[in-house]
């Protein structure tokens, strides 16, 4: 990743979300899709006791892994290396891209096929390879669709969830020569499959993400529904896998709790169609499998997140995306409004830590703190507490988070000082509330804050007498 500085221009979430809100098709697509996903998930966890136990187990797996992260990463590297998997460390996305380019050049690769990988989204890998004359084709159907559309994934699990069948049919007609105007999911899937099948056979390199990397065995676990992940990791002669450094688990036994909760939470499936466990490249005498496997382990700010005991919980995430499905903000504006690799609640806590509060300071504020995400997170990440902490960091200069204090404002600090002075002194409070009761309703709606409030609402009406007044009048005892 390019070096970021405190002066980096903030990403304007408000403007992007405004555009999304004005698109009734988009809003309808998200509302329907998210309602469906929430219902499917709820069916999977109808038994509250089972949910409680599974979640406690998965959270403990992740917590234990994080508690000994440096040790487990060393073990993972040693065991992968022993298995013939080549391990590469990248502290920035730029470094990761350079590692990939080196491998591609060495094997003279022209075409890479990719399974889903959010880490490569962090790296903007497709664009980077394109700049170097290499085609990187997304092979996950949703990713294939958004790549064809020239946009970004709008959800980490369902990248094209913002589009309906009709829109996808139109897109295929526009972009694919042999496509017919058939608005049918089975037809469209079949067409994509035929095209991708050919690409799998011709690709020089296959790429994938990693859902969990097992330290004790040096195994890369990859779950998926379409078989494209298996194709990417077995057909091309070279496989490059990408993981964030937090994705390690200690033992093989730690895998089932994670991969059983992940699809249940994400799509309401008890298990994905494919569960891939990759432990080594093709061995002597074997007939298939890649000849080389590379594992790129990316930091990109994660070790700073790890260094803070409170923020560290961000790294428990298993990327199920359930927090998006349940977020009342995400379901209104969709994923593109965030203009980030990770949208929704997890994005609001992860991206500002990776990219800094100068650029991403608004993200932790795009949240009502309703806790819907916290309630369903399968690994119990205290998302809203971390959100609150990042709001503190945004206005408090320091070095806990990249660009801490970037949003510090003397005016805002003074307003809160004044608010605190008023609310911490009974006499000041009495005078202030009396003034608001008498004069508050005369405030013009054009005032800042009131203007925003009254865009769709009437003005809040101050009561003529406060509860303090009424309680006193009715003789309610004070002590």
């Amino acid at each position: 990743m390019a070096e970021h500085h405190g002066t980096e221009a903030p990403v304007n979430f408000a403007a992007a979300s405004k555009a999304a809100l004005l698109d009734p098709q988009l809003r309808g697509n998200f509302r329907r899709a998210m309602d469906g996903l929430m219902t499917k998930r709820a069916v999977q966890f109808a038994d509250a006791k089972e949910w409680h136990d599974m979640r406690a187990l998965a959270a403990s797996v992740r917590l234990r892994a994080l508690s000994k992260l440096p040790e487990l990463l060393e073990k993972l590297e040693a065991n992968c290396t022993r298995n013939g998997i080549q391990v590469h460390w990248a502290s920035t996305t730029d470094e990761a891209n350079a590692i990939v380019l080196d491998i591609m050049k060495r094997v003279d690769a022209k075409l890479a096929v990719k399974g889903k990988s959010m880490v490569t989204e962090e790296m903007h890998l497709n664009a980077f390879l394109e700049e170097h004359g290499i085609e990187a084709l997304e092979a996950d159907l949703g990713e294939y669709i958004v790549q064809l559309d020239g946009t970004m994934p709008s959800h980490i699990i369902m990248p094209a969830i913002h589009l309906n069948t009709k829109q996808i049919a139109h897109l295929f007609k526009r972009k694919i020569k042999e496509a017919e105007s058939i608005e049918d999911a089975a037809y469209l899937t079949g067409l994509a499959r035929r095209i991708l099948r050919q690409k799998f056979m011709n690709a020089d390199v296959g790429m994938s993400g990693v859902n969990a990397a097992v330290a004790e065995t040096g195994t890369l676990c990859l779950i998926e529904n379409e078989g494209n992940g298996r194709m990417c990791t077995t057909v091309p002669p070279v496989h490059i896998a990408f993981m964030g450094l937090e994705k390690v688990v200690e033992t093989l036994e730690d895998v089932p709790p994670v991969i059983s909760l992940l699809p249940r939470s994400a799509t309401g499936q008890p298990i994905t169609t494919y569960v891939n466990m990759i432990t080594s490249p093709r061995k002597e005498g074997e007939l298939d499998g890649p000849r080389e496997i590379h594992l790129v382990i990316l930091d990109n700010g994660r070790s700073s997140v790890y260094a803070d005991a409170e923020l560290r919980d961000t790294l428990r995430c298993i990327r199920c995306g359930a927090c998006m499905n349940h977020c009342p903000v995400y379901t209104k504006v969709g994923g593109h409004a965030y203009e980030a690799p990770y949208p929704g609640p997890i994005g609001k806590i992860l991206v500002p830590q990776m990219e800094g509060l100068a650029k991403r300071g608004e993200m932790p504020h795009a949240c009502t703190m309703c806790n819907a995400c916290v309630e369903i997170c399968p690994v119990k990440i205290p998302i809203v507490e971390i959100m609150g902490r990042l709001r503190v960091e945004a206005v408090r200069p320091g070095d806990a988070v990249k660009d801490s204090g970037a949003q510090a404002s003397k005016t805002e600090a003074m307003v809160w000082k004044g608010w605190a002075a008023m609310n911490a002194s009974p006499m000041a409070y009495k005078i202030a509330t009396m003034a608001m009761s008498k004069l508050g309703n005369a405030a013009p709606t054009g005032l800042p804050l009131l203007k925003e409030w009254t865009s769709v609402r009437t003005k809040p009406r101050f009561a003529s007498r406060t509860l303090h007044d009424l309680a006193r009048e009715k003789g309610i005892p004070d002590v």
Partner: protein
Amino acid sequence: MTQPTPPRPSPTRPSKVYFFGTCLVDLFFPDAGMAGMDLLKAQGLTVVFPQGQSCCGQPAYNSGYRADALKVARAQLDLFPGDLPIVVPSGSCAGMMKKHWPHLFHGEPDEAKAVQVSSRVWELTQFLVQVLDVKLEDKGEPVRVTWHASCHAQREMGVVEEPKALLRQLANVELVELKREKECCGFGGTFAVRHPEISAAMVGDKVDDIEQTGAKRVVSGDCGCLLNINGALEGGHKPVQGQHIAQFLKERLHG
């Protein structure tokens, strides 16, 4: 999906309680505060309303100004010296006091006192049901209502069934639940003015949901939500009105 309900506490019924009215009730819904105290008094309790009270500190806490939040929260600590329950007619403010005060005061010299005060906090409907086990006699006309659950009442205080159980005790009240009862109304404190368009879309969905129940009233236990929902209902010229549950219950008991 919630975690399994923790075992119900079986507190002894006190003869006296403190009432923490909250700043929003104080300024915008004082009748709801009075109704809350009346409901407690009707159960034979002495209600104490410390006149020195102001705010739980949540606005600054959630805005990143923890020192200012601490100053305001600290100013409340000495108002409740007796070892008595503190009843709050708001799930959100109760949640701030119960869940966040221990965190806010962590490492402060008065941490122990804050934790002790915090442990005595009850949301009003939770107290009416769990501690007082109230039995309500409905004297009102038949009416259809719906219930708006506040996020913090549900997810910080664990108050989900209590208010609905109270409404269901009322013989002439038909409770029609919202399709998306658990979804936030879009208030979120400063969120409503920081992201007014998203907040508007959220309260818009909530208003649609309310209208579809055919209810005449939407009853809630949190005044932040009520300011938002009532403002949007009125702004959209909808006939439905929002009301705090304390006030609604009091009206029903008096016919």
